[in-house]
């Protein structure tokens, strides 16, 4: 029978580079990139350096699986509580028969220090594991807007000269439509001042922490700044961008997008820049609502963006965004577990302030 050990490497041990293990598949090495270490160690919620940073499953001496853990905060009613979240659950294909994914999911669940747990941004397989572990599962319908026609054509398998030819023809239709849509957005936003900034102002706290929802992950200005300043994968096209929105020089709201270069091999897509609206807030929904956020993201995303992606469970936004060429495509999942069992209402998605940018979603 295989010898299976589940262990943790703490923040302190990572920082001092103490851990040694046989890592032929790069399972542990994945967690030790410069970008990841910078992100994890600059977490404004990191207080306990003895807490686990990397959970490892070691089978017959071989590191075969991992997950990462970091601290965040949640606000339940008027109380701010510590919460554990995480990243990068993975099991090497050759070791899946040992069910070590079970160990890695359950380890933080059974840690008595973890009263609240929150995770986001899953594969379909991953979400099954968290459902099985009796997490509350929240799903945000995802909408996408194609900004470049060649992305859609690559999905249906076109390449080479046919792709280039049909892209040219398709762009004759799509580009004017997008131009018209963006022009209308510019007119709508004429009375607003929109500024991109590298510094998240502290007035956003009042918006994000007091929007009327009973449950939320705490996205105050310190957390947002941390997310703005970090990402897990470097590429020249990868950017996190924060925009403040003012009316007559007074803050009205904000929105944040991430732009990521990606190849989607299963869909035959190469060199795609996907832009995602990860956070937004408004102190006047009549003047600046989620539909306008999505329209402004369309206007302000980089010219290289092939797909603009948004996620929301607001039915009005889902309906109205179709006018601006957004189409439905899948879900973004967020899961939560209340180990104290004190917060029965936390099962109700409608009581949560949910955004795409939960847990590590902005860094990915």
């Amino acid at each position, binding site marked *: 029978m295989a010898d*299976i050990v589940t262990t943790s490497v703490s923040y302190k041990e990572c920082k001092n580079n103490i851990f040694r293990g046989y890592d032929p598949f790069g399972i542990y090495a994945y967690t030790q990139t410069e970008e990841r270490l910078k992100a994890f160690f600059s977490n404004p919620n990191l207080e306990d350096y003895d807490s686990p940073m990397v959970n490892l499953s070691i089978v017959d001496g071989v590191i075969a699986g991992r997950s990462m853990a970091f601290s965040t905060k949640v606000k339940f009613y008027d109380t701010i509580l510590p919460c554990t979240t995480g990243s990068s659950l993975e099991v090497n294909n050759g070791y*899946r028969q040992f*069910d*070590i994914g*079970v160990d890695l999911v*359950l380890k933080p669940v059974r840690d008595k220090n973890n009263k609240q747990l929150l995770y986001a941004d899953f594969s379909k397989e991953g979400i*099954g*594991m968290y459902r*099985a*572990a009796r997490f509350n599962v929240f799903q945000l319908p995802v909408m996408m807007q194609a900004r470049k026609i060649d992305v859609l054509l690559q999905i249906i398998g076109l390449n080479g000269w046919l792709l280039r030819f049909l892209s040219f023809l398709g762009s004759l239709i799509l580009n004017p439509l997008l131009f018209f849509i963006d022009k209308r957005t510019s007119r709508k936003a004429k009375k607003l001042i929109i500024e991109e900034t590298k510094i998240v102002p502290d007035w956003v706290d009042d918006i994000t922490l007091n929007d009327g929802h009973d449950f939320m992950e705490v996205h105050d200005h310190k957390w947002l700044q941390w997310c703005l300043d970090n990402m897990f994968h470097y590429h020249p096209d990868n950017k996190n961008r924060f925009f403040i929105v003012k009316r007559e020089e007074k803050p009205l709201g904000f929105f944040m997008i991430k732009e990521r270069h990606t190849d989607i091999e299963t869909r035959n897509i190469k060199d795609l820049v996907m832009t995602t609206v990860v956070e937004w807030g408004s102190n006047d929904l009549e003047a600046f609502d989620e539909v306008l956020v999505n329209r402004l993201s369309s206007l302000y995303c980089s010219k290289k963006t092939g797909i603009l992606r948004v996620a929301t469970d607001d039915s009005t936004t889902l309906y109205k965004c179709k006018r601006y060429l957004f189409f439905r495509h899948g879900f973004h999942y967020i899961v939560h577990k209340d180990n104290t069992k004190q917060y029965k209402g936390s099962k109700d998605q409608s009581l949560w302030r949910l955004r795409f940018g939960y847990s590590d979603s902005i860094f990915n």
Partner: protein
Amino acid sequence: MEIKQFIENFIELFDDEPTCEVTSETVFRDIDGWCSIVALSFMSMVDEEYDVQLTADEMRKANTIGDLFNTVSSKV
């Protein structure tokens, strides 16, 4: 804690009801649909229904549903 109820709770974890007869002698890994997600569901069920935390190692050492029942009973 009764074996009959335990087996009923076990069967409910599967998306499709097992076609074979499930008894205490059944090797649970041979049941159609058994996978790590069902294993995790089982461990979560045992945690909530019986207030027992099974380790993944105890799961791996068990072969039959009877083995699982005995392990859980010993910890109740």
